[in-house]
């Protein structure tokens, strides 16, 4: 067992974990953070994407021990002071989700994308979300949603 210290959605946790424990299972089974789902187990679908020290990672491809000392943000920590993040509002408004299983990962990947490129063209959004699968929407409304969020974050009217 190894001891890790992590900050998840603003709360510090000190936990003993087996070295082989995946970060996503640590989040879900140990901390009860089930807002981050598991879709494929093989790093393909991106449903489990979270932010680790400001970068998006697929939490099924990270060991919990690798997160020692890290600042993690999951979809559950995306809103601040009860205000939903512009990405959350935009995915809702633009119907960027149906079953919603990919949405937590999409949001966290899009967050990283907009940090790197606050004014992305459609091609940039598509390139940035390539690692996240959605089976319901055909992605068109997801592109719209990210564009809308980018406008709102730039201070424009959505």
């Amino acid at each position, binding site marked *: 067992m190894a001891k890790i210290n992590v900050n998840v959605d603003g709360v510090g946790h000190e936990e003993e974990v087996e070295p082989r424990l995946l970060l996503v299972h640590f989040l879900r089974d140990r901390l009860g953070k089930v807002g981050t789902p598991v879709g494929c187990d093989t790093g393909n679908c991106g449903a489990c994407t979270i932010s680790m020290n400001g970068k998006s990672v697929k939490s099924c491809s990270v060991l919990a021990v690798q997160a020692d000392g890290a600042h993690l943000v999951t979809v559950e920590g995306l809103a601040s002071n009860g205000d939903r993040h512009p990405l959350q509002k935009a995915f*809702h408004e633009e119907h960027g989700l*149906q079953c919603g299983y990919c949405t937590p990962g999409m949001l966290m990947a899009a967050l990283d994308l907009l940090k790197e490129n606050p004014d992305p063209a459609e091609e940039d959004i598509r390139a940035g979300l390539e690692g996240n699968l959605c089976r319901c*929407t055909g992605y068109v409304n997801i592109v719209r949603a990210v564009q809308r969020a980018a406008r709102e974050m730039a201070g424009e009217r959505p």
Partner: protein
Amino acid sequence: MTMTPAKVPRELDSPLDGGVGESRRRPDGTLKVTGEFAYSSDLWLEGMLWGVTLRSPHPRARIRSIDVSEALAHPGVEAVLTHEDVPGFKFYGLEHKDQPVLAIDQVRYQGEPVALVAADHPEVARRAAAKIKVDYEVLTPITDARRAAFDPDCEKVHEDGNVVRHQPVIFGGDVAEARAGADVIVSETFEVGIQDQAFLGPESGLAVPGEDGGVDLYVATQWMHSDLWQIAPCLGLPEEKVRMTMAGVGGAFGGREDLSMQIHAAMLAMRTGKPVKIVYNREESFFGHVHRHPARMRYEYGATRDGKLVFAEAEIILDGGAYASSTPNVVGNAASLGVGPYKIPSIRVDAYGVYTNNPPCGAMRGFGAVQACFAYESMMDRMAAALGLDPVTFRQINAAHPGDALATGQVLEHMAPLAEMLGRLKAMPMPPERDAAGHDLRELPGGVSNTTHGEGVRRGVGYGVGIKNICFSEGFDDYSTARVRLSIIGGEPTVLVHTSAAEVGQGLVTLKAQIARSELGVRRVTIAPADNQVGSAGSSSASRQSYMTGGAVKVACEAVRERMFKLFEERLGRPPASLAEAVEHLPEVLGDEVIDETREFHHHRTERMDPVTGQANSHTQLAICVHRAVVDVDVELGLVKVVELAAVQDVGKIMNPLSLEGQIHGGTAQGLGLALMEEIVVADGKVRNPSFTDYLIPTILDMPPMRLDILEYADPRAPYGLRGAGEPPTLSSTPAIVAAIRDASGLALTRVPVRPEHIAGSS
């Protein structure tokens, strides 16, 4: 006291305005964007056990013995069950009860459940399952569906023969005579691979034993009552002792119409007296649900030189795998819609659904119609080319219009004329030509893998037409049930809508609220979680829930409104001048009383297909979508980039524009997947690619932007005139894309998915 798990579905508040026709937001949207929406995989109860399923590694084998003693002795294990432990009837199935809950004496497909383990930790359960000793006598699997159907010497998968259903359709004049009068005849054999629904949330659920000897089941499914009707007999319980609640569903697309872990978890919970959760991982999910039937289809068409089709003949063989599931209905769709929405004077179709030892196949979006559509649209292109006609013009010449009969004799009614839909599609602006100089790698096939600078890249354009039946067909008395309650809460009129209908992502929760708001003029609408405390809503499949549960909510609201008006008149001595006035006075009129009405909604009757001729008004409603695909193909490497997809679809009435567009985009994307990449590869009955690493579904880079033109030709028999919309786009996008690749490459391409080696000629 019954235990209630953490993370169960809750009531959903709907945004405060917006009725039918508006792009209202999903009532479950806030939960879904904040990570609070409770999927079936999130269910949790303190002290619960974890169940795992031991599955057969062989597609066909006799079971000589099963020894569970070592598994049972494993620390942490609380139960190990085999078919001997099934408390009631040992078989289940949607149409035929041919599937054992756990294998009895033999296995018929790779992945068939053989035994169950419950333990205090999922890894403990998996380890224990590995200690179950099953002595198999491995047999040669029956994997050739055509042989299984027609070779009398072929062994039988089940005792009563390998053909699940043969449905002929014979229309108009004699085909042999018509063939003699044809100027041009074309024939071809087409194949469709096995497609997987690939919903993102794998099968999972929780069973909680009840004090009355019953069980509470929290599951993600498409039709709770159909589950119930299959589960209760197998558990040896009356239906009222199986209480079902819909857990959050991570996509379905037909893959949750059959049972997966429901009976298994309930058996383990009843045996151990503890709650049991089962969660499949992605690999197990590939074995845990039925897939889209693979098909082999031989077609022959004849036409006159001026472009009129004179006959069509088709033999469609659908491999249903080891168990029947919905194979009979898949055959019915393939037969009745086997030549598409075209006017052809002589038609003969023979559709067969066959048992083999391949993976079981059943419902997936557009079933039966999808496979046939790839064949008949490929034939339309083939014939147009043989006649030297433009493919759109050729389709317009032969299009069946309102008033014309389909192959089954059923007359098209109240829908957009196909020729006009095609005209609108062709007139839509084309995407810009590829910029040969200074091009962006991302715009080329192969993308930033830098596989080409455009030397071998050719552009192609293709068209596809698809027709799908909406709602259940062939005489099934299809209905849905809705309960609507009106009361005053906090001084404000509030409506609760309660159905058992499965919200699988399609947006039914939004629509139910919109309908309630429109019909009752009330702003506050709450959607109750789906459970079996209200009557059946039927399945969230066949594009039917807007029509059926939408219809049930509408008639229940009308009953509530009638009582609301009566009460108004009783209390105020005059009828209300308007709905708005009635609602305005509701707090004083209704007081502490509650208006609570439950209604069933049935669609008009349909007929069974004649077993010899297939003739019948078998379908409730028909819907057409047409697609245009523009592709760039690297003809040297076989890589395809779909540049743009355009679609024209008639939906009768647009209930929620953005939600509808999402259905068309998503349906189109699944058709793109079938055209280009999606196939469960099976060799000797064994699945070779059960993972998202090896089974590819379209990414955001594979799926292009879309142009949509949505038409509203109202169907007067349907609520609001609406037409089911979820499936038709899945049909027509596939042949459109393949036609575009043919246009770019000049290749025949008779099989989907089209793989790079089919284009580059390396296979």
